[in-house]
């Protein structure tokens, strides 16, 4: 097996709150691995730590603990000077394209910027490549002379994607790249990302709260809750056979855009607890419909399910009590 592009082990990130000894526990011991060319979807609700993980693997946020290996190299603690050349191989696309682009630069210069920083190209080579990139993201060449204020959200997100692929990176982190876009525009961007995935060998970490979107684009999905991975499986496997009670309720809360689809729902009570005071034992136990006494004391470890690499962190899996019974709703 080829070595992964990215390997994260026991990643922990705590943010100080301003009061001494009190921390926001954003990420609590996350293990991840992405193979070359693979698209890993990361889903979770707000506060589950998905964006923090996405930023930490690129060292845009300094991890508190843990080890990050990129392309077989430990990058956890190397200084920014040595980090710079590596950034060529790791790119990011953000949620909000309006604030991700400098409004005073022309679109052409924005697309050329990463090449200017990372690649040794002549001016004309760079210009040719800019036009080529614009073509690849289906942006008409006349846009290259305009500014970001002249473009729509969908077009700006294409510019961001063009920037991200300009240096042929090995890993692209996409943090909610379609959440701020209208439905039809979202569909176009997903199309484009699929195309790019086929053209390049770049691995992708696709962060989203929307299960429908993640399902379309990911090979494998990890589900996060309160800064911990609760389940990890191949996409079809997760949707067919979610093992963790949280994944099950997350899938059941999803509303398919089809009035004929029968919903079998289990709606969780309450809200996500504060990451400042994490519940002891299993962090999901306060909302879990099948929690037992021991869930308060023991921290769940990953359980293998089958042979396809499906893992879930639930203490009720050994006794078979991890299934929640959904109530039928028309």
């Amino acid at each position, binding site marked *: 097996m080829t070595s992964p592009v990215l390997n994260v082990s026991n990643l922990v990130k705590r943010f100080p709150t301003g009061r001494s000894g009190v921390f926001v526990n954003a990420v609590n011991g996350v293990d991840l691995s992405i193979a070359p060319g693979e698209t890993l979807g990361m889903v979770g*609700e*707000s506060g589950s730590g998905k964006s923090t993980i996405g930023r930490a693997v690129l060292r845009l946020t300094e991890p508190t603990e843990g080890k990050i290996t990129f392309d077989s190299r430990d990058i956890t603690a190397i200084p920014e000077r040595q980090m710079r050349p590596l950034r060529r191989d790791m790119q990011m696309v953000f949620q909000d394209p309006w604030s991700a682009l400098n409004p005073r630069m022309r679109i052409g210069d924005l697309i050329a910027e990463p090449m200017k920083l990372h690649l040794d190209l002549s001016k004309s080579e760079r210009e040719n490549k800019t036009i080529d990139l614009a073509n690849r993201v289906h942006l008409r060449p006349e846009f290259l002379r305009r500014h970001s204020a002249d473009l*729509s959200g969908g077009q700006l997100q294409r510019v961001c994607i063009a920037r991200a692929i300009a240096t042929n990176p090995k890993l692209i982190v996409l943090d909610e790249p379609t959440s701020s876009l*209208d*439905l*039809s*525009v*979202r*569909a*176009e961007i*997903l*199309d484009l990302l*699929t*195309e790019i995935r086929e053209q390049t060998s770049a691995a992708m970490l696709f962060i989203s*709260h*929307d*299960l*429908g*979107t993640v*399902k*379309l684009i990911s090979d494998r999905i990890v589900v996060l809750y309160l800064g911990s991975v609760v389940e990890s499986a191949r996409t079809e496997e997760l949707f067919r056979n979610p093992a963790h009670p949280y994944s099950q*309720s*997350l899938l059941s*809360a*999803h*509303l*398919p*855009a*089809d*009035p*004929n*689809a029968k*919903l079998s*729902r289990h*709606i*969780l*009570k*309450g*809200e*996500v607890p504060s990451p400042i005071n994490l519940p002891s034992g299993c962090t999901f136990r306060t909302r879990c419909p099948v929690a037992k006494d021991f869930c308060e004391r023991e921290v769940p470890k990953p359980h293998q399910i089958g042979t396809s690499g499906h893992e879930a962190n639930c203490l009720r899996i050994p006794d078979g009590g991890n299934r929640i019974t959904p109530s039928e709703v028309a």
Partner: protein
Amino acid sequence: MSLLEVENLRTHFISRDIDNQIRVAQALNDVSFTLEAGKVLGFVGETGAGKSLTAQSICGLLRPPARIVGGSVFFDGQDLREMPEDDLNAIRGDQIAMVVQNPRTSLDPLTRIGDQLARIHQTHSGGPISTSRERALEMMEAVGIPDPTNRAKSWPHELSGGMAQRVLIAMALMNNPKLLIADEPTTGLDVTVQAQILDLLKGLTERFGMAMIVITHDLGIVAHYSDEIAVMFAGTIVEAGPVVDVFNNPQHPYTQSLIASTPEKLQIGGSAKLGGQPPDLYNLPSGCPLRTRCSFAQEICATPPPRRQINDTHYSVCHFSGKSPANGSAS
């Protein structure tokens, strides 16, 4: 008589440009619909299609340069457009309530939430404040806020997004409205919380016969929580009808592309998607506003499209509704 009857509502943004020439953005163009008590109507459409503007026009909440230039809004037999501001104030917040998209900026940051809730009740009831306070606690309980007595003393900044949204819903329901307008009531909330709030609202329409307008981007919400759907494009309703009819048999090319763009139906690399930009409201194309983006457009589309009934309750505004070539291509 229906609870809400909106007919040919037209709202324009009228302003002057840098050369002092009058510019008119035709934001709403002949919007007509009716809503019966106890029913839920879902409005969908892309950004700028006029969903929120329709709600604001109904409630008389427009600010210049937006102005209603034509049409009528009848609520419970009363003409809201002709009504003096004081009478309108007596209805808003009482018989017609609104839940807006951003809960955090809609609460008064300097007033405890219990007082904000009691205030809206007392303003309309004129009764003793103690009655209003009791009512506030009841409603907080009803929308699923735990420990209402203590929570009533919270400040808005102490609430999570889901809690703030619940407070806003409680506030809208304080006076038992006949009509609730919910503008993106769950956008920005987590899916598990979204489900709780939608179930709550749906339950209220069933229990109290309240009518509801839900404005959303999410076709999943409309599919499962609405009785009827109105699809908006460039300030007009291009297709409307019972949810099941419209989803099973979408007739307008825009509706078809919208349904084809949902994650469930989306074919990666497929051709059913609608490209292009929303039309320029300052300079709408003649005839059908979709024709510059519609793959079925023909010469006839430069003339205004007719409203065609597909059945008694389902209609579509397209030259080709109910017949080829546009018919049924997304299925």
